[in-house]
């Protein structure tokens, strides 16, 4: 049986409860090619059932809901099954499994979570704000995983005086700090009027970037290893004159 769900945590937990007894269950929030005669079921989020599943799982592993939330943010196409197998292992084991690193299901989940949290760390560094006319900051990003809102606490602590918008252009959503509160909102396109000095600061940064390099020690492979090209798109130092 294939269980389709909408990608939310509530709906995942509802589906998990339904699919738990079915050893051949496939859980997915994407689209997939169906085999002939394959049975399918579209699972609607049921908060009461989800709560029940959550309560049971939390009794076994107090940290498992955070793990689940991280797993469901992953951009990997197999994340639903990875999450399913991981939660199933917790249920079977009757306790936390995250340190059972020689277990396939656990290993897949741990690696998947590591990719998500590593990308959060990367964006703490690679995100670039531009200053708008009003003084608010705007940063477009296009991350592999759904992490825009996970970036909020870091930048809020750091820049409390500046309202900012972190725009995930791929998922068309924005993580916003309005100077008081943080929230997430859908955002298709943003029109940003830059402040008078913004272009000059970007030029100065490009100038710095060029000056600090040691050309006789070129190591492009190492550079791309640390900072894959897909992250360059919104960084001023890689945009032409």
């Amino acid at each position, binding site marked *: 049986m294939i269980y389709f769900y909408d990608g939310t945590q509530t709906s995942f937990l509802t589906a998990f409860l339904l699919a738990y007894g079915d050893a051949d269950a496939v859980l997915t929030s994407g689209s997939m090619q169906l085999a002939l005669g394959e049975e399918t079921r579209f699972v609607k989020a049921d908060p009461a059932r989800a709560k029940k599943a959550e309560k049971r799982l939390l009794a076994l592993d107090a940290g498992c809901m955070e793990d689940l939330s991280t797993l469901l943010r992953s951009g990997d196409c197999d994340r639903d099954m990875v999450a399913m197998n991981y939660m199933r292992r917790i249920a079977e084991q009757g306790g936390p499994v995250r340190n059972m690193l020689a277990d396939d299901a656990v290993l897949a989940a741990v690696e998947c979570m590591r990719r998500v949290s590593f990308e959060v760390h990367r964006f703490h560094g690679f995100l670039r704000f531009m200053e708008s006319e009003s003084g608010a900051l705007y940063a477009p990003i296009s991350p592999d995983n759904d992490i825009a809102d996970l970036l909020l606490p870091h930048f809020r602590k750091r820049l409390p005086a500046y309202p900012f918008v972190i725009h995930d252009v791929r998922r068309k959503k924005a993580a916003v700090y309005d100077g008081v509160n943080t929230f997430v909102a859908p955002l298709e396109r943003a029109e940003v009027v830059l402040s008078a*000095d913004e272009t000059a*600061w970007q030029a100065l940064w490009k100038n710095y970037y060029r000056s600090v390099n040691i050309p006789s020690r070129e190591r492009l*492979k190492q550079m791309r290893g640390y900072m894959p090209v897909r992250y360059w798109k919104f960084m001023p130092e890689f945009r032409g004159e």
Partner: protein
Amino acid sequence: MISEEKLKILTESAKYDVSCSSSGSNRKNEGGTGNGYVAGCCHSFTPDGRCISLLKMLLSNDCIFRCKYCMSRADSDVPRVTATPEEVCELVMDFYKRNYIEGLFLSSAVHRSPDYAMEQLLVTVKKLRTEYHFHGYIHLKGIPHADEKLVREAALYADRMSYNIELPSEQSLKLLAPQKSKESLLLPMRQLQRERNIFKAEKRKGHFLPAGQTTQMIVGASPEPDGQILRLTQSLYRVTGLKRVYYSSYMPVVHDSLLPEVPAGERREHRLYQADWLLRFYGFSAEEIVEEDGNLSLELDPKCAWAMRNLHLFPIEVNRAPLEALLRVPGIGARSAYKILEARKYTKLDFSGLKKMRVVLKRARHFITAGGKFYGAEGEAIRGYLGAAEAKQNAVQLSLFSDRETVLSALTGEL
């Protein structure tokens, strides 16, 4: 706004300083802009493969000292510029809020006098902290021979300070950096460390170098062997209490009859860093790694070389060996050792399990057994495998413009 030309000159004179890390400080944002990031954070990478974490610049490149290896030395014919504290503060704030940088790495030439230069550095960081309310990371270079009061006050505002040892022995320092002396570098380091300990012990309010001190030395400009360098490093860690020692392999940016004309090999620098890691995280001592007048092997990394000298200790069983023994296995790093410790609580590990856990076995397999099984080579035969693993990483495509050495080594397969 600081001019592009000025920033270019002040950056280019600072860029050979190796340290760029922004780790070790958990300074909170106390009603302003910025905070510390204990793990450190890289904001960009330049084509030379180095990370940009801090805005690394000099306050001035106008120097009265004549260190032979330095492009800013007094008798060198380069344009001289000096930035004002305001220019630097403004630059830091505007770069920081755009998330270009994690903080400031400020150094200076010995402008006018050591005290004047140190004072200008102090004025800048103090302004940044108290007028601009900046709580991000600040790494400040110490100026040798500056008044100790200035140094002490600077430590209240900086997260980390560093005096560059520059050269690994007193003789070389005399020869190549005549106005600097071992005392002018080591005394302030010891002073800061002593005061930092007192500050911590008395639990005083505020900060005193929360990220400690580091230093840097140039390798290959003078004749000291690796054994001597690593012993110095070890005493800097154990006695002086430094957080990091950086090595920069010598590059001829200026010409002088006292300096070598050829750059020191980057491989040597790499080996020194590997050995440095063994000292700090793997429980090795300098004496175990290399004899005092010897150099590190360029062919084998220092851990492999140590293991080859101590074959009687291997192989060890991954399911039983204590952490200290696992850390000494070539190819097993701190992360892998930790993973093994965790995973073996639940199941008996075999080679396929290790492989799944991404423990790299290329080198390790010669030194471990897993569930009693051994898949390595024996005795001296191991050396061939270890060497081969390394040589492959260094394979390069020949080009017309490769230097003679690379061509030869690629043709002969020898390093």
